[in-house]
């Protein structure tokens, strides 16, 4: 997005709760919207762009209607692109486009949900057969974890990746989570803890999987004009890319993800490359999700992700590629089973110098990447490159 009018993330808010038995999903949407607007120094009446996806209790395509209704919000522009967990990373790019085209100048992106309180056993539950694709996949008991398990198995087969290497990803996340008072799991774990945890779907163990949490988050994006009127450090959106990736008529390669395309597009738009990234938020539904994304975003060669993550590479503040310094979905929060929102929020915190002090990185440029759906069938990939103002 170099050479074009800048657009900014001016507000970011992560709901502090991880379990909300006594709240409604809409209430959580409202609380995160209020939090992000307060963070930006703006009010509800300033919002004219509404970006949201997947209110689970409602028909997904109607999410913006129920949200606008509940919040009493007028909007001149609405986007409800639903890529699963990558949606909220995509929404950042979509909001920037809408702002640049004069369709809105204050865009609100929200996510909320209560899968934990609703007793959803994410990842290991057999699902109802509802689509043509389900009839060729879900009828075989293909759960989220078995599908990511297939990705991990093939990666191990082709590249010699080990369970211990995947475990390094959880170890780094847990090192960060110990400094996050809101994280669901705050105790650091070792490689042995991960590989000795119960196998859920070979070769993935319980600690290779993310948490199930209630909560949500919101972002506020603004135009240059609005940016000049508010007294708050903002983050510039430098580049955005996205890509749906799928079964490809039977030619699927489960070791590769849409991050190859979404990352390349985001870097091209930013005029930057992986070597310029000081901090990375990478969607971590499972450890293998991170490993494949790291390779596909170009932080290392394909197949070398296992070696790359060894030796504390991902650990803040001293690793070469500090990642998910809030503890990520693996240890802290995976609100509504959709991790893209918290990926952007922690990247914003890093660029504003508001991460937890023990994991704060000296970051000028950060990346946030989302993966939604399943890398073993079809998924959305969305990447944004963000920059500190005056960097």
């Amino acid at each position: 997005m170099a050479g074009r009018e800048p657009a900014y993330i001016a507000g970011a808010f992560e709901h502090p709760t991880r379990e909300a038995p006594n709240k409604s999903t809409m209430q959580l949407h409202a609380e995160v919207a209020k939090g992000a607007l307060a963070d930006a120094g703006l009010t509800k009446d300033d919002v004219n762009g509404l970006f949201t996806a997947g209110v689970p209790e409602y028909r997904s395509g109607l999410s913006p209607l129920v949200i606008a209704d509940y919040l009493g919000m007028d909007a001149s522009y609405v986007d409800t692109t639903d890529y699963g967990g990558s949606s909220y990373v995509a929404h950042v790019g979509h909001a920037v486009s809408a702002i640049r085209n004069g369709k809105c100048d204050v865009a609100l992106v929200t996510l909320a949900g209560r899968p934990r309180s609703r007793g959803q056993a994410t990842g290991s539950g057999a699902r109802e057969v509802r689509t043509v694709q389900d009839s060729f996949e879900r009828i075989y008991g293909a759960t989220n974890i078995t599908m990511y398990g297939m990705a991990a198995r093939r990666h191990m087969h082709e590249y010699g990746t080990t369970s211990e290497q995947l475990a390094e990803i959880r170890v780094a996340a847990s090192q960060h989570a110990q400094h996050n008072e809101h994280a669901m799991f705050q105790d650091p774990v070792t490689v042995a803890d991960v590989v000795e945890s119960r196998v859920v779907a070979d070769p993935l163990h319980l600690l290779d999987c993310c948490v199930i949490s209630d909560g949500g988050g919101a972002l506020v994006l603004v135009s240059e004009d609005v940016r000049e009127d508010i007294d708050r450090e903002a983050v510039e959106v430098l580049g955005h890319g996205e890509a749906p990736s799928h079964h490809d008529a039977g030619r699927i390669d489960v070791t590769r993800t849409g991050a190859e395309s979404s990352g390349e597009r985001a870097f091209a738009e930013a005029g930057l490359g992986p070597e310029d990234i000081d901090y990375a938020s990478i969607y971590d539904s499972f450890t293998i999700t991170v490993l494949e994304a790291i390779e596909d975003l170009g932080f290392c060669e394909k197949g070398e992700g296992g070696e790359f993550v060894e030796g504390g590479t991902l650990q803040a503040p001293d690793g070469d590629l500090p990642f998910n310094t809030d503890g990520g979905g693996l240890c802290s929060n995976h609100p509504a089973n959709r991790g893209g929102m918290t990926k952007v929020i922690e990247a914003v915190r890093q660029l504003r110098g508001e991460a937890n002090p023990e994991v704060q990185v000296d970051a000028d440029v950060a990346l946030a990447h989302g993966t939604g759906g399943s890398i073993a069938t079809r998924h959305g990939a969305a990447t944004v490159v963000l920059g500190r103002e005056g960097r």
Partner: protein
Amino acid sequence: MTWEPRPVPEVNPETERYWQAAASGDLLVRECPDCGLVYHYPRSLCPDCFSENVEWRETTGRGEVYSYSTARTMSGWPEDDLPLVVAYVELDEGPRLMTNVDADPEDVAVGTRVEVQFVDTEDEDVSIPVFAPVED
């Protein structure tokens, strides 16, 4: 949701022939004579060239395990069917299809040669292809 004896797929006009063939012991794929693509899952136009001139093709029912994962726990699935090997099998004709491998998980590896078998559903016109290891 019916899980016993097996989940029943949603049969539609595009896929009816596939499921009925399975009930007769044949595994079909789609082939596009215009561009040569052999593909799965079945659909009425070629996803590469958009030709609607696509044909059904019988397969040998043989292939090898491309990848697999063994579900040790699964809510909503019969306990007796666990552990369950969920796999992608790459057919000798080309396409990779998701399926189960009916075997002790210890006897399954990437590259294991497998052959199709068919499992009944509650709908007598519909059977589901799964695979089992085979000596080549």
